[in-house]
């Protein structure tokens, strides 16, 4: 098909969809129609074929009171009983016309109201008793059998059989519309000689949109003879409204010529369709065909309509049942997943423990859980890179709680590589803030559709009107790139799971917050405990030191040399313990006092620390390599303490070096500054690196290097108070480098 042809076809389909089939302006001629006003009951419009049926030109009937034509008293009660909200034609009664020359005398009168008009349709009266006798028992058996049938196909099969029995059509089939409105034939009963369509698919384009709309409202439509000559209404416009009469619900409504052509192409001359409407949606049709013209009495039609409604209810019940079953299953799976998550205290772990449930839950072939830095995959999934690309793609749609597609190549054209590995995905975001997702994957399901003829209509090149296809030969189409669509219940289930998981995540966050609160409280308690212990320790230490000094002063001359040495040791020990306590106190102080942020010139700070340390450097050969240092925002006093500790250590641990080299510098990275102090001292074994920054952790014997073991702990505490990090690198006897990095902080300078 060339582009022009394709465009022609589309245009024709559009025109077809625009054809106002509810106001055809004519009726099928197997009955006649009168539109009368109320309450006067004067004829406003009449079908032209009154000439045929009544022997009267339609024009002569216009304006006539109905009572001049027939005995209105007999139908008065029936008309009054017409329900206002039911627009379906109702059999008011059989009437006879007081006219001469007509072909028939007794007619079944069907009446309904539309647009303020009373529409009266007259058809040949059948034998009511006969109809009752045959229809009632059939229906009774049918309803009983329907209730006993569980399977959808069985229901359709039963309905088809029953309709065929009631109507006598040569072929009756039931089909169901898929999401795209293509109709798949589920059940079929046909007399010998009729083409079979069971299992075949009729393209959606066979039934234009407005016809579907009409099918949804008016559940039954009969065409008794595809070769009928429509009988126009006289006058064409309703005098009451100035518009064509709306025949949506009229049993005699004339149908589109395109449809008649379609029927003739199919080799059927009579047809009837019964709509199956489930929850307001045109679920399917029972479609009857006959090679010959066929009459369908109103009783039969009414029975069929009723049958259609019963069938629809049964289908709905089965669907609800299936849905409930699936929902229950989903719930159970959600509960299992949630309890696994709760048991392991982790969403990811919960999923990992129950891969089968996680997959079965969504009927997926693979799944992945993406959290901060991890991607946990199970089952059949695309490669890691593709999943991450998908996550990135999803990240741009963060506001969407759920994303699902049964055709990735169509819905995510940006990720062609992904589409090579799976066809369907469903992803739920399980965090408002982070890129945390649960993603299910479905593999491609090659779908083979057996079309009842190539699903393309053709355009009549003379008129430009749509000419229905001529071929109903089987035509096979293989559809690739599609996965089984995600059912609404599965999507709902995924959302439910999402909420539950979010609940867990939130609860965990709450627990963490509570834990943090408790930790803070107990930390504070510990700090005040350590403070008071240190504080109280100081007094006895002071006394020991004081009395030792006094003792050595007063009695020193009388003590032996050893005695004097002991006294000195006591004094040293007390003094050291005092320093220890003081350091501990200032360490606990660091945790308690607030940061006072200001600009800190690191270069100046290093210079002043070097001055302070000058006494320790006396007589030593130290080469200072001082790199340019930035000005940062920090607590000046705390940072002084930290840097002094690090530089002091560098001086201390290079003591054994004849030529000590101490390098101090800083590097600026995105959003943070890293300061380092490097020395060529005794270094340390990296296996103890983690111990370096702990309180009372020492790597050297007291005789080698003095110290309280609090210095680096203080450094860490200070840096961590600034939300920074500390770490160290070193090698035994090869020097050490101590680093700390501080985030770039901001402060509000106090206005002076």
């Amino acid at each position, binding site marked *: 098909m060339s582009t022009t042809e394709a465009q022609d076809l589309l245009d024709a389909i559009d025109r077809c969809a625009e054809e106002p089939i509810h106001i055809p302006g004519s009726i099928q001629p197997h009955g006649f129609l009168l539109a009368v006003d109320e309450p006067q009951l004067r004829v406003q419009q009449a079908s032209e074929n009154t000439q045929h049926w009544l022997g009267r030109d339609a024009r002569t009937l216009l304006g006539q009171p109905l009572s001049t034509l027939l005995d209105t008293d007999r139908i008065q009660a029936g008309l009054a009983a017409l329900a206002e909200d039911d627009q379906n034609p109702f059999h008011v009664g059989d009437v006879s016309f007081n006219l001469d020359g007509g072909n028939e005398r007794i007619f079944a009168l069907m009446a309904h109201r539309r647009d303020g008009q009373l529409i009266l349709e007259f058809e040949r009266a059948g034998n009511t008793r006969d109809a009752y006798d045959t229809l009632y028992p059939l229906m009774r058996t049918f309803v009983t059998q329907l209730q006993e049938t569980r399977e959808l196909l069985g229901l359709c099969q039963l309905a088809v059989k029953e309709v065929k029995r009631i109507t006598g059509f040569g072929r009756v089939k039931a089909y169901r519309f898929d999401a795209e409105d293509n109709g798949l034939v589920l059940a079929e009963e046909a007399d010998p000689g009729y083409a079979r369509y069971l299992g075949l698919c009729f393209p959606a384009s066979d039934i234009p949109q407005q016809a579907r709309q009409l099918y949804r409202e008016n559940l039954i439509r009969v065409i008794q003879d595809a070769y009928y000559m429509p009988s126009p209404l006289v006058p064409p416009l309703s005098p009451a409204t100035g518009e064509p009469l709306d025949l949506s619900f009229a049993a005699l409504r004339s149908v589109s010529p395109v449809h008649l052509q379609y029927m003739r192409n199919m080799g059927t001359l009579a047809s009837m369709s019964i709509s199956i409407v489930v929850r307001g949606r045109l679920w399917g049709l029972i479609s009857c065909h006959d090679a010959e013209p066929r009459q369908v009495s109103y009783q039969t039609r009414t029975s069929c309509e009723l049958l259609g409604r019963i069938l629809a209810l049964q289908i709905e019940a089965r669907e609800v049942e299936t849905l409930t079953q699936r929902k229950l299953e989903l719930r159970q799976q959600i509960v299992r997943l949630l309890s696994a998550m709760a048991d392991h205290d982790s969403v990811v772990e919960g999923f990992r423990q129950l891969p089968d449930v996680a997959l079965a839950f969504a009927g997926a072939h693979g799944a992945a859980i993406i959290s901060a830095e991890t991607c946990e995959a199970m089952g059949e999934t695309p490669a890691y890179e593709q999943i991450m690309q998908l996550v990135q793609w999803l990240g741009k749609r963060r506001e969407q709680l759920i994303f699902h597609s049964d055709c990735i190549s169509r819905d995510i054209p940006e990720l062609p590589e992904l589409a090579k590995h799976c066809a369907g995905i469903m992803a739920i975001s399980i965090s408002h803030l982070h890129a945390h997702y649960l993603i299910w994957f479905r593999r491609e399901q090659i779908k083979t559709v057996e079309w009842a003829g190539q699903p393309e209509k053709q355009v009549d090149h003379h008129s430009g009107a749509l000419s229905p296809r001529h071929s109903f030969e089987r035509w096979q189409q293989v559809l690739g790139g599609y996965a089984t669509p995600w059912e609404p219940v599965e999507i709902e289930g995924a959302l439910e799971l999402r909420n539950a998981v979010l609940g867990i995540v939130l609860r965990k966050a709450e627990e963490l917050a509570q834990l943090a609160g408790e930790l803070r409280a107990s930390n504070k308690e510990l700090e005040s405990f350590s*403070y008071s212990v*240190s*504080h*109280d320790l*100081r*007094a006895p*230490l*002071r*006394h020991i*030191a*004081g*009395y*030792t*000094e*006094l003792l050595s002063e007063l009695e020193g001359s009388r003590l032996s040399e050893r005695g004097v040495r002991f006294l000195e040791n006591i004094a040293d020990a*007390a*003094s050291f*313990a*005092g*320093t220890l*306590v*003081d350091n501990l*106190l*200032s360490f*606990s*102080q660091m945790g308690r006092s607030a940061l006072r942020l200001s600009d800190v010139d690191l270069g100046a700070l290093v210079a002043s620390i070097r001055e302070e340390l000058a006494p320790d450097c006396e007589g030593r050969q130290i080469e200072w390599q001082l790199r340019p240092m930035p000005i940062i925002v920090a607590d000046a006093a705390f940072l002084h303490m930290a840097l002094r500790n690090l530089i002091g250590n560098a001086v201390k641990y290079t003591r054994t070096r004849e030529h000590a080299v101490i390098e101090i510098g800083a590097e600026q990275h995105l959003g943070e500054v890293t300061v380092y102090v490097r020395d060529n001292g005794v270094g340390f074994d990296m296996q103890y690196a983690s111990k370096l920054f702990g309180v009372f952790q020492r790597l050297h014997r007291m005789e080698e290097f003095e110290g309280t073991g609090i210095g680096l702990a203080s450094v860490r505490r200070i840096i961590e108070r600034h939300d920074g990090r500390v770490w160290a690198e070193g090698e035994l006897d090869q020097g050490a480098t101590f680093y700390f990095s501080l985030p770039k902080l901001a402060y509000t300078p106090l206005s002076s």
Partner: protein
Amino acid sequence: MLKPILLVEDNPHDLELTLIALERSQLANEVVIMRDGAEALSYLLRTDNYAGRADGNPAVLLLDLKLPKVDGLEVLKSIRETPELRSIPVVMLTSSREEPDLLKAYELGVNAYVVKPVEFKDFVAAISDLGIFWAVLNEPPPGSLRLKRTRQHDDPI
């Protein structure tokens, strides 16, 4: 007659060491010792056991922060709230610099504080500095040695 130094200290060792330190600083002032805050206030306000003592405030009050019954801060508060006592210089003695109560002491108007050092030598030095400053310089008693020295310094003849 020099005004006395009032020392309020409950711990006997600290008391002894402080007295030795004062002794070594060669201050001529008499040292009056009180062992808790309540007793100190009685002395200052001349009530109870001290109702009969002679009029006059001490030259300086060396007040331990932690005291039984009425603690140092409360004593300080009472002093600052009593018009007749308000002008007494108060030096707080504390066990450590990290004392959170120090801030409160400042708010209540303490004149100085001394962290009792572990090293006795340092303690002696701190106490003599204090004594010289508060007991002598602030209100120089006539005829004192150090006064003369100060005078000489101020007004060289």
